């Protein structure tokens, strides 16, 4: 089998190769296709971090979009130049009104504030389990949305923040993706990560083995919120307009679809899920606006792609409950074994 040194070498080569490919794509591809690649990158960050809490730790959170919103708003407020801030948000407190941070710090601060929210919300809520926890996190999403809409002074409420600097480019996203996958992988393969997986498999057994439930769950929840915040901030500065409505039920549901389809308990699954579920709606777009297919003139059927995605999700849950990749992780060693795809022999569901 391959020892870790050569595996590390392969990874570095892959990273360099990836950067090169992205450089070429960035130069020759039209902005439309680059935008899709950027969105795939952001979705990878969001889904891999969602898998950390949903797949690896068993906290099935529906509140991921709420942390995205916190990250996006904090980063946006910190990066808007003071002059513009005066017009957009006149009632800002003095110290905040003049503050303007470079994008990197604002990004990390956005993630930090999101994970602090996760800590505040998570501590009481993580004692719940299964349905109750999922619905409580959905409740958190609604609360965040309402507070952002109502705190007009700080966030301009429903008018949202627009005209944001479009800092986000393919390199910020590529750096974000690498950072997310690296840290999530590190955590999962650490002792703490195994504790998390034990919590997912059987909380009672884990507790008997001395795994401190709350601390493991909290770490997973806050770390996943940190990256959700970063993903949200990158999204905000790519689209340059954020409103409370941008981070709604449908956003959370899309992320859950990507996570479930790809495979909740595998990082590679998250990547594949994000890739597929960002690409397919774009391709379905033509189908929706009415296209003549082999002569038959299809009337425009708007809402068709949402239905096709929903049906795809149900099929995935029925026939591959653990998602396309189940628990399979991409690794150089496995690449040597011919079939990348074994029938998921996992019986724990």
């Amino acid at each position, binding site marked *: 089998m391959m020892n870790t040194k050569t595996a590390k070498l392969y990874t570095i080569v892959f990273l360099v190769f990836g950067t090169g490919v992205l450089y070429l794509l960035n130069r020759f591809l039209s902005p439309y296709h680059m935008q899709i690649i950027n969105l795939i990158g952001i979705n990878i960050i969001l889904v891999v971090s969602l898998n950390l809490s949903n797949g690896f730790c068993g906290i099935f959170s529906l509140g991921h979009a709420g942390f995205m919103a916190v990250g996006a708003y904090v980063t946006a407020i910190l990066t808007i130049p003071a002059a513009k801030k005066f017009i957009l948000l006149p009632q800002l407190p003095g110290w905040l009104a003049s503050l303007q941070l470079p994008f990197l710090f604002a990004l990390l601060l956005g993630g930090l504030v999101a994970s602090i929210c996760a800590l505040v919300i998570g501590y009481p809520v993580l004692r719940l389990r*299964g349905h109750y926890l*999922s619905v409580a996190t*959905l409740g958190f999403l609604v609360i965040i949305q*309402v*507070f952002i809409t109502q705190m007009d002074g700080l966030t301009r409420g429903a008018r949202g923040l627009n005209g944001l600097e479009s800092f986000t480019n393919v390199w910020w996203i590529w750096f974000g993706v690498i950072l997310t996958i690296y840290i999530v992988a590190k955590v999962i393969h650490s002792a703490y990560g195994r504790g998390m997986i034990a919590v997912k498999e059987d909380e009672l057994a884990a507790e008997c083995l001395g795994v401190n439930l709350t601390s493991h769950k909290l770490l997973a929840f806050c770390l996943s919120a940190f990256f959700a915040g970063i993903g949200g901030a990158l999204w905000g500065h790519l689209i340059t307009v954020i409103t409370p409505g941008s981070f709604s039920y449908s956003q959370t549901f899309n992320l859950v*679809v990507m996570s479930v389809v790809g495979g909740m308990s595998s990082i590679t699954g998250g990547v594949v899920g994000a890739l597929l579920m960002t690409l397919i709606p774009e391709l379905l777009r033509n189908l929706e606006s009415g296209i003549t297919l082999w002569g038959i003139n299809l009337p425009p059927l708007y809402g068709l792609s949402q*239905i096709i995605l*929903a049906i795809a999700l149900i099929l995935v849950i029925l026939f591959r409950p653990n998602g396309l990749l189940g628990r399979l992780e991409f690794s150089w060693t496995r690449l040597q074994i011919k079939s990348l795809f074994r029938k998921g022999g996992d019986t724990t569901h």
Partner: protein
Amino acid sequence: MSLAYLIQNTIDGLSLGSIYALIAIGFSLTFSILRLINFAHGDILMIGAYCALFIVIGMQLPLWAALILAMGFAALVGIFIERLAYRPLRGSNDVAALITSLAVSIIIQNTGIMTVTAQPRKFEVPEVLSNIHNFGNISISNMTLLIISLSLVLMIAFSLFVTHTKIGVAMRACSENIGVAQLMGIDINRVISTTFALGSAMAAVSGIMLAGQYGRIEPLMGFVPGLKAFVAAVIGGIGSVSGAALGGYVLGLSEILLVALLPPAYSGYRDAFVFIILILVLLFKPSGILGQAEGRKV
């Protein structure tokens, strides 16, 4: 803060509460028997309302006939959804069922938009229902009285059904222990279909009430009330039907009274109140007001 203002808000809270209660019973039923949170339950509310609208306008039938036909149609839709989306999933983990119900909800909403367009439509209500009785400052419309009384009647009828009919007893047995119920000769598939049929029929009635009270229906009208009704079911004690009804009234009253009593700037926080109440209940009394704590088999 005159007494009339308080009474007026209490009446409005009761009317909203009875709508939530009817939907919450559907949630509680499906949860108690299948441990399934059916997010698509809210959208059946929309199907019931549109069905009633087409019957009243299309077939020129009176509202009460539309009510019954809409209940029947919604029941069929409920059975169809259970048969197609939830039955193959039985036994898998509860999260898979939750996601599937979200997917079904998306499918219903978008099919609605595609077929009946997203334009809000007027909901015909017979003249007699919309005239108002004024007692000094307090005004109650016949529609509100109908909503409160009809939902009470339906709830009593439902609890009689559950206690006295054979299928009702089977439903209670299934909610206790679905495995053993099979051993007693209970056909759980028939029981589950009945549960979905009953829950959907009641959701259809609440859909028509909602449409009648506010005079407007559109394809996305079901999701938020559905979610709030789930909160009501949890507050009342998920799994216990009388708990769901009580939770519905508590939620309806607290939502209206909180908005009415707090200064106007806070009326926008209405939805947040609902979910803050939910999280508090989940933390301090997860089994809800009437629910039994589910012990954990060690």
